[in-house]
């Protein structure tokens, strides 16, 4: 009974988002689920499962994603709706994959890679980042158990309907909650430090753009390794391994101007011409050697030379 919506397919951002929706529906993941709103394809609802072997295991955490109009050239923004003890609810969280750090964003990343990274960031130490919380493991466990009972209430009735449907899907895929708390040493992992962005954040419209800060955020590992992993456990281990080494971005080398490129190509021809000039010079030397040889032969005949002079 719902009418078919015609999207503006000439927009590259819309085409990209439609490709992502198609790919997510054809390859669903057991660890998260994400769907856009019907009336606005730039507004998404998602739900992630808590990572395994952590105090969040078994929890179902809902959230909202806002994609910018320049997507995928600009990063999206993320907002959690379910209390987790790790991220504040209804407040944009600060990660290297969100719009707080557009300098770390890669256009090859997608909503799928962002959700995998979000699952992997849950057991990490918040380190005072904007939008992060640092509850005790027991409190996080209680919140994880509570998150399965009812989905959060947010937004319009159509959005709430989407949230309820996502919650039912995630409940069917979620494993039972483990009884004991795991021992996860997460003090050694340090996420982004986003304190200096507290006064610069724009909480306004859909396409809110944050200032490009100079703080050294923790880069998300390559999207190819993220996109290839569908299981949360392998992804969490993969991402955690990437986080341990201190990955610093290499300095940007300025682009070679086209005049230098043309000069580089032009130097090839004088090189060959030089070789040919040497060849011609060798031939000339050979002829001169023949001439000198002939001259010496004539010099042997003293009378002929003296008569000539």
């Amino acid at each position, binding site marked *: *009974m*719902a009418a*078919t*919506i*015609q*999207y503006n397919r*000439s927009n*590259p951002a819309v085409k*990209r988002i439609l*490709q992502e*929706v*198609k*790919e997510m*529906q*054809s*390859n*669903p993941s057991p660890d998260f*689920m994400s*769907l*856009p709103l*019907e009336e606005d394809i730039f507004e998404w609802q998602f739900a992630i499962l808590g990572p395994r072997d952590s105090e969040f295991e078994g929890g179902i955490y809902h959230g909202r994603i806002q994609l910018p109009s*320049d997507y*995928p*050239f*600009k990063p999206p923004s993320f907002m959690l709706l379910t209390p987790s003890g790790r991220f504040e609810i209804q407040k944009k969280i600060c990660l290297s994959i969100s719009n707080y750090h557009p*300098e770390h964003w*890669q*256009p*090859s990343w*997608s909503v799928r890679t962002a959700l995998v990274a979000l699952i992997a960031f849950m057991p990490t130490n918040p380190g005072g980042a904007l939008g992060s919380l640092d509850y005790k493991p027991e409190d996080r466990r209680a919140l994880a158990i509570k998150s399965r009972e009812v989905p959060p209430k947010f937004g319009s009735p159509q959005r709430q309907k*989407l949230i309820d*449907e996502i919650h039912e*899907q995630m409940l069917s895929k979620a494993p039972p909650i483990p009884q004991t708390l795991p021992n996860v040493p997460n003090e050694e992992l340090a996420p982004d430090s986003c304190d200096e962005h507290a006064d610069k954040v724009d909480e306004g419209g859909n396409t809110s753009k944050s200032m490009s800060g100079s703080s050294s955020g923790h880069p998300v590992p*390559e*999207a*190819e390794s993220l996109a290839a992993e569908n299981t949360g456990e392998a992804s969490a281990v993969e991402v955690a391994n990437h986080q341990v080494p201190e990955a610093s971005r*290499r300095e*940007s080398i*300025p*682009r*070679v101007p*086209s005049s230098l490129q043309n000069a580089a190509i032009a130097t*090839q*021809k004088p090189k*060959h011409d030089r*070789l*040919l*000039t040497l*060849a*011609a010079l*060798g*031939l*000339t030397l*050979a*002829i001169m050697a*023949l*001439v000198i040889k*002939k*001259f010496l*032969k004539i010099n042997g005949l003293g009378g002929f030379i003296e008569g000539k002079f």
Partner: protein
Amino acid sequence: MSGGNAWSPLPSHGFGSESSGMANRAGEPVARTNSDGGGGGSKDSGSFECNICLDLAQDPVVTLCGHLFCWPCLYEWLHVHAHSQECPVCKAVVEEGKLVPLYGRGGSSAVPRARSVAGVEIPSRPTGQRPSTAPQPDHNNHYPHQNPWFNGAGAPPVANGRWGSYTFSAAIGGLFPLLSFQVHGFPQATAYGPAAGFPYGYGHSFHGWHGHGFPRQAPQGQQVDAYLKVLLLAVGVLVIASLIAF
């Protein structure tokens, strides 16, 4: 309430048919809604999809690190949005002079995607850097008398002998007025294609040239043979004349 919207019935869109996905990518999509498109084709044709727009690459270019992009997508990223010249996938340094375009069977003159949304004027993509033609395998067998002459004259390496002989003839023609007819013979070599003897420069007439390389090289070989014979004869005559004069 009854009836679901286009997004919610996820189980019915679990795995779409690959043929439907391929059909959507090949031409203009017939189905306007997303629910009709099958995403199963992404596993087969994903190797040639742009890493930015996730669609079949238009005007494809490949970076040195091996990642494939549409040229408009990569240009917009490098010149409008990126903070540095880095690969959108692996953050490697990207130099526009080292991008390699991919030429398929279709004509790339049409511009199906007008970049008026971003308001950026996108130039043509970088041209490919065509290396020199491979040397003929039977180069030495055709000219057994050439080796001592070239070695004595300090000739360039044999790998460059084919195209180098043209410039060599021109150089000799400039040094000795008696050999000026060699320069007149040089334009005949270009009849086989633009910049046939030069290592750089791309010509569309050479598309698929290597497939027919051997039959076309035979006339050029005979031409080179004629050049070398005349040149050798002229030099020999000059040396004999020098001997007689003294």
